[in-house]
């Protein structure tokens, strides 16, 4: 403690007191020069201080701009990689379209195969690897409005992966034949999960609002969904957390194809 006490008591450099004592002993004034307020030394010192201050401040600014430039270049690289991924996916779907065409051309050549082709198209539709079209319902789910408070964290409640899972399950249970979320077809290999507050479907990040399209009997699908577990879940989420949702029947829906490639799993021989 004595160190700090000393620091408070003798804040002024002791050199000043010593110099003043020397001058007094020599019979002069305590201060050097008649008008210490005009001192050249003080001016020089302040000049040095100003120079140091500005240099340090400019340095900090420059460092900050370097950091932000690095972040911008990272963001740019992310954007480039994302567009590259999109391009590759487009190529993939183009190639799959080519394969389908070639397959159907091959099948056309064989007389007996038109039946086979129809059954294959039906199988691709139900597996999710072929685009389908038909009547159905659209369930739109969105985060709660700003200012709504619910849950425990105090943040605005958002749609969870669990909510979408329940909606999709409810739609299957209500008799849906094909389901997609924001253009991502739900197949047997689709996972709906969240990573860092973002919901991934088919490993693609989606943004709210989530539009779940389901092809099925549009006269019964909507009402059966609402009465079933999926509708119950949505109603519960909407009353407790303020999650917004809307269900409407649509005469014609188009669901895109998904890519579900089996790399290791082989069809078992029917022996």
């Amino acid at each position, binding site marked *: 403690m004595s160190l*700090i006490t000393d*620091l*408070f008591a003798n*804040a*002024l*450099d002791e*050199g*000043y*007191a010593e*110099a*003043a004592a020397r*001058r007094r002993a020599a019979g002069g004034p*305590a*201060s*050097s*020069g008649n008008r*210490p*307020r*005009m*001192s*050249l*030394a*003080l*001016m*020089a*010192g*302040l*000049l*040095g*201080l*100003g*120079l*140091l*201050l*500005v*240099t*340090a401040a*400019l*340095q900090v600014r420059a460092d900050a701009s370097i950091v932000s430039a690095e972040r911008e270049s990272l963001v740019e690289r992310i954007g480039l990689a994302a567009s590259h991924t999109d391009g590759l996916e487009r190529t993939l779907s183009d190639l799959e379209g080519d394969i389908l065409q070639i397959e159907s051309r091959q099948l056309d050549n064989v007389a007996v195969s038109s039946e086979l082709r129809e059954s294959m198209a039906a199988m691709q539709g139900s597996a999710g690897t072929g685009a389908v079209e038909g009547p159905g319902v659209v369930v739109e789910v969105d985060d709660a409005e700003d200012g709504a408070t619910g849950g425990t964290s105090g943040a605005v409640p958002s749609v969870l992966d669990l909510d979408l899972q329940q909606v999709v399950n409810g739609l299957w249970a209500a008799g849906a034949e094909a389901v997609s979320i924001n253009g991502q077809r739900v197949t047997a290999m689709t996972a709906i999960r969240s990573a860092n507050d973002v919901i991934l479907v088919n490993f693609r990040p989606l943004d709210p609002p989530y539009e779940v399209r389901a092809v099925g009997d549009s006269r019964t699908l909507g009402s059966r969904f609402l009465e079933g577990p999926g509708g119950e879940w949505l109603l519960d989420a909407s009353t407790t957390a303020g999650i917004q949702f809307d269900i409407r029947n649509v005469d014609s829906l188009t669901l895109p194809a998904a890519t579900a490639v089996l790399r290791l799993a082989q069809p078992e021989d029917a022996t």
Partner: protein
Amino acid sequence: MIPALGLLLGIVAGLVFDVSVPLALQPYLPIAVVAALDAVFGGLRAVMDGVFDDKVFVVSFVANVLIAAFIVFLGDQLGVGAQLSTAVIVVLGIRIFTNVATIRRHLFRA
């Protein structure tokens, strides 16, 4: 008033010449600024106390800046640079506060 002109001149000079500091010296710049602040407030207080001395001021200014930077440099070499920077800042900060309090008493009699 004229010493304040010096401060202004220093700031303008720093802006105009855009001095670039070598990378190796950059960590010591903030410490040097605090040390210079301490010396300047010490000098101002000496002026008000009527014991100002040119030589003591200049020597204390230069020595303060160099020693503060050197202590932090030494700490960096020993792996305790951050802690020593804190120590220097605390000590110089206390001195600046005490000196400014005295200056304030001289100026406002309060």
